[in-house]
């Protein structure tokens, strides 16, 4: 068996187990038998309610948010040829949350449930396009990450401004939910409004993944072997924007998972960006489901935010990856 052939099945099994585990654990632990019978419509009504209305949607939301960030991170890393690229670091998630909160607190989102995810995607697309345009002008990823820092700071400041100016009541905890990310109290309805965007974005990334492999050679040689650079940039920006926007609409801005998952996956797929997309998505989903289980069972008076746990694991990993990079690849 080659190294890659067991990777996806193993991740699939682990993901199913994690999702099932997320249904077992919680403030009232349930036995596997009770969870299983609730799944198939047996058990008592309270059990079914807990599983179908609370635990399963929450776990699925965590998985979807993670998967969208994982595939976007892997694709952006391929496009920018750098392992530090990721929606959170590049300011894409923060811009998406800003646009989402804007739509929410200026009452636009009340018009249709589709407005919120579309606003988040709009914010994400603006940020990804900015990054992609900047990437044409500079080869330095440090510059891109600094632009990301700028975008994130701007989004944070603008959100504080919104908080002061918005006509609708806007609480600090709302803002923290968007900026740090959480999948608490998500329902299948909310998942339904974000999922199509995540799906389409991921499909675009998968469809254009071959070009990411070609970009390994650098842009000049990639065009030399037959890559349409402009088209590749547009498709990756669009795909990552849709997927990240959808994930932010569902769970707010959760950082770093899009760096950690592809980094772990890469050696298993021969460092090929194209082949890292699906496994990165699965691993990132798995990580967030596990992190969310941690959030739920940690005994704390106020529930921790999922994004906080993700950053506690992810930020040190980011620093570690950054420090190990050789200066020449800058």
């Amino acid at each position, binding site marked *: 068996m080659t190294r*890659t052939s067991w990777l996806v099945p193993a991740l699939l099994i682990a993901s199913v187990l994690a999702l099932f585990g997320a249904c077992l654990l919680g403030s009232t632990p349930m036995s596997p038998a009770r969870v299983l019978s609730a799944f198939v419509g047996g058990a008592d009504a309270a059990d079914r309610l807990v599983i179908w209305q609370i635990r399963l949607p929450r776990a699925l939301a965590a998985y979807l948010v993670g998967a969208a960030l994982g595939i976007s991170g892997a694709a952006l890393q391929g496009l920018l*040829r*750098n392992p530090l690229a990721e929606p959170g670091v590049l300011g894409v998630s923060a811009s998406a949350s800003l646009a989402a909160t804007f739509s929410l607190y200026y009452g636009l989102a009340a018009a249709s449930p589709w407005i919120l995810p579309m606003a988040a995607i709009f914010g994400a697309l603006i940020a990804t396009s900015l990054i992609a345009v900047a990437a044409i002008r500079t080869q330095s990823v440090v510059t891109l990450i600094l632009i990301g820092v700028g975008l994130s700071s701007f989004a944070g400041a603008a959100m504080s401004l919104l908080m002061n100016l918005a006509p609708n009541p806007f609480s600090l905890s709302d803002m923290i939910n968007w900026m740090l990310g959480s999948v608490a109290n998500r329902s299948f309805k909310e998942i339904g409004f974000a999922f199509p965007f995540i799906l389409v974005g991921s499909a675009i990334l998968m469809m254009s*993944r*071959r070009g990411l*492999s*070609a*970009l*390994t*050679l*650098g842009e*000049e*040689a990639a*065009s*030399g*072997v*037959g*890559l*349409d*650079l402009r088209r590749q940039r547009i498709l990756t920006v669009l795909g990552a924007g849709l997927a990240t926007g959808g994930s932010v609409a569902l769970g707010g801005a959760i950082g770093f998972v899009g760096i950690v998952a592809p980094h772990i996956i*890469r050696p298993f797929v*021969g*460092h*090929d*960006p*194209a*082949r890292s997309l699906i496994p990165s998505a699965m691993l990132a989903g798995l990580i967030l489901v596990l992190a969310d289980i941690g959030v739920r069972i940690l005994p704390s008076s106020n529930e921790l935010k999922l994004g906080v746990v993700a950053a506690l694991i992810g930020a040190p990993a980011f620093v570690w990856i950054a420090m190990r990079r050789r200066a020449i*690849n800058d």
Partner: protein
Amino acid sequence: MTEIIAKNLSLTKDSATLLQGASFTLKPRQLIALLGPNGAGKTSLIRTTLGLEKRSSGTVSLGGTDSEALSPMERARRVAYLPQQRPLAWPNSVRDVVALGRFAYGAAPGRLNPRDAQAVNTALELCDLTDLTNRHTDTLSGGEVARVHCARAFAAEAPLLIADEPVAALDPRQQFRIMDIIQAYVDRGGGALVVLHDIPLAAKYASHLIWMQDGRIAAEGPPEETLTVQRMADIYGVRAHIDGRKVEIEGAI
């Protein structure tokens, strides 16, 4: 028969003239060395010829089609291009990098049909990389990496090759190895345009020399005709001793 016919190429960028009235032809079984000092316009000539840079005027026929009208994939099937900057973003295996040469045929690393796999294997053999196929590129020496890039270019099995300084920063033995590989490609019926800074190397291998200066082609022809003491002085500002195809550079003027 695929050939490049470039006529009267000019390139102006931000009011700087990078290329002016350059014409040349690259045919099968030709090994053209493109010579000239830094900034003479060699890379501009290559990029404009390929259609990677939009020309200000002139025409380029690449196998009968205007090079700017070709899709990137169609172009890649007619001419393999080895740019000056050859970064490798990830430490892929040698086989996977060479497999990228099949991109224009719809292949990708790990997804090669038998035809692609055969082309990759042949390219690996031609460049003497069969013992290194599973090595990761970050563990290779400079000479080995240069051969990987050559193999990547040959994997496309394109009738023409354009290489921008393929032997830069290599030791003499590795330079000869790369030039031998390109020579063998030309002997098999390929046509190659190669930017070189090493005049003795160019004189040894090339069937034609194109001399560039200040965005123009100053001279063109076989080494026996165009390699002269006067030309070395005009183009490079060096004193040289020349005996047929043998060149000895004695110093700056």
